């Protein structure tokens, strides 16, 4: 039932501004793919081109080898959830969800039944007769979702559908959307600027910037092995430390670095990517598999579930690390002004090409 999407050389400019620069992407049948990027990166433009609301200057998009670029939006049979939900205020919940079926000439009785079933999937079948303005934001979100899937499209597009919800509801909906996708199995393209959301929900994430797709990979790879500095910086928190390369050996601040497997290759300027949660505080005991990093505690920021510790290194950079806030950890927390020795385990080392620095 699900179909594949093949995007080739899709280009769109607005005057001097290049919104999409020859983008290519393959999406597998049934895949949940997220376009992740800052505003202006081209992710929404690409989604709108898929839906048929923006016409690119050139390129090809095939769905199961059917070219769709020249089809008008109403003939594409693609479901879409809009950022502001775009529910019809003059129709009830049931009429909204039944509308795509009405357009497909489904009889009133069957329409009602199928609308109710779609609403049941999002646990709102008891609100069929409500007006849209009587619903909360979360309920609207679910109605929009039910309306997008009721006609069983093979492709579902979502444009930052959770951005208007508060944090708790958003996280709950992320899991629900994921489960719904697992059940229905339609090919899904999801747009967001929230990296955490992208990591939580996706089979693969495509990170975009300035109209380019920089990296397409499963969430874990995106986070643990970012392809360049932009991806490393945009996804998660990151510290970058300059590294000198001599052949296969790398040194930081004069001391040799132990690298993870597969990280030793290459020449040119490199930076060591250090995530705040990957750093340990080394005591007096030697830790042979850790790269030691020395510095002075600059500031402590209590944030509830974690403590953020800023450390100024002897080499001059300031880096951040995170510690949990269990009582024992809190009692062992370093104090501002104290010297501190941090350790980065050899398996957690990631080298980033500085040349690709955007």
């Amino acid at each position, binding site marked *: 039932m699900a179909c594949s999407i093949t995007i080739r050389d899709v280009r769109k400019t607005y005057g001097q501004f290049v919104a999409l620069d020859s983008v290519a992407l393959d999406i597998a049948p049934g895949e949940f793919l997220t376009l992740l990027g800052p505003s202006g990166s081209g992710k929404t433009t690409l989604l709108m081109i898929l839906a048929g609301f923006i016409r690119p200057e050139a390129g090809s998009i095939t769905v199961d080898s059917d070219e769709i670029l020249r089809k*008008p939006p109403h003939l594409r049979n693609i479901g879409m959830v809009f950022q502001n939900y775009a529910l019809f205020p003059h129709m009830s919940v049931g009429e909204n969800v039944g509308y795509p079926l009405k*357009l497909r000439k489904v009889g009133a009785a069957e329409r009602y039944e199928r609308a109710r079933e779609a609403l049941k999937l999002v646990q709102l079948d008891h609100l069929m007769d409500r007006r849209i303005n009587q619903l909360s934001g979360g309920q609207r979100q679910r109605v929009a979702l039910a309306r997008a899937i009721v006609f069983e499209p093979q492709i579902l597009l979502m444009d930052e559908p959770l951005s208007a919800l508060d944090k708790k509801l958003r996280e709950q909906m992320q899991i629900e959307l994921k489960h719904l996708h697992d059940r229905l199995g339609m090919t899904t393209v999801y747009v967001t600027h929230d990296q955490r959301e992208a990591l939580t929900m996706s089979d693969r994430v495509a990170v975009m910037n300035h109209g380019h797709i920089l990296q397409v990979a499963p969430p874990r790879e995106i986070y643990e092995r970012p392809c360049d500095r932009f991806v490393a910086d945009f996804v998660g928190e990151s510290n970058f430390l300059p590294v000198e390369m001599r052949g296969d050996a790398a040194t930081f601040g004069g001391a040799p670095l132990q690298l993870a497997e597969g990280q030793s290759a290459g020449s040119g300027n490199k930076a060591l990517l250090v995530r705040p949660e990957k750093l340990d505080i080394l005591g007096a005991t030697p830790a042979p598999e850790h790269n030691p990093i020395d510095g002075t505690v600059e500031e402590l920021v209590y944030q509830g579930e974690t403590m953020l510790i800023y450390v100024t290194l002897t080499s001059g950079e300031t880096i951040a690390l995170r510690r949990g806030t269990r009582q024992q950890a809190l009692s062992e927390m370093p104090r501002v002004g104290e010297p501190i020795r941090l350790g980065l385990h050899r398996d957690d080392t990631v080298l980033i090409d500085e040349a690709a620095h955007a």
Partner: protein
Amino acid sequence: MHDMTAPQGGHALNRKELAADERREKRQILGLSLPAAAIILVLLVIPVGWLFALSFVSNGEIGLANYTRMIEYSAYLSIFSTTILISLFVTLLCIVLGYPVAYLLGQMPPRLATIGLAFVIIPFWTSILVRTYAWLVILQRQGIVNDALIGIGLIDEPLRLAHNLTGTVIGMTHVMLPFLVLPLYATVRNIDGDLMRAANNMGASPARAFRDVFLPLSMPGLIAGSLLVFILCLGFYVTPQILGGGRVIMVSMKIQQNVQTYFDWGAGSALGVVLLLIVFAIFYLVHRLAGLDRIFAR
């Protein structure tokens, strides 16, 4: 438990003073609307009330003579039906001509739309009298339109475009058009473009999406604008008087005739009262059908 440091009886702290501040603010707001209320009372309620009273006076006697006359003479019926039919027709023309304008303005980027809107509003800055005589220049036997049509050989005889119903309708439609476009534009501007895109996405052709989504959502503005045009048409005097050339008699002209020619204020007032009742009846009807509160709350 919330605030252990609060003194006993803390709930009463500053209570009187804060309530007094609240009252003073309300008085100030009320005071600001007082001049407007006074003007309405002096300039509208009192004169209308006075005319209402006058309508029951005929030849120095109090009675219903002014009203029974309207029923007895069929001329009055024809004046009222002419007035209503012309008003309906002009309203319809305004909808046909004004809807596309409002729709187009609504789709334009805001800056262009502002310029377009200026073109709709600019005629407002010219007096109705000037605009009406301009139409006379354009439409009369030796006017611009007839000269041009004869010039290119499309017609031999000049068309009768002025001093009749045609001229009246053309002139009235021109004057009334902004009253339809402005409220409609205000409504259309606020229709979220994503709603049409959503309908498209679900499988509605552009025409179908317009019918199912845009048109129903523009209804409040359309009804408000149409109501405004229709009611203004009912009492319209200057344009039909000049462009009708005496062949088209509307209620307003009959009122003017009664007052100015026959010095019969009672008869004129009675016509005005009936016109007002018709307006109330229409409002009531629209309210029952569509809900005025919904239309004007937008």
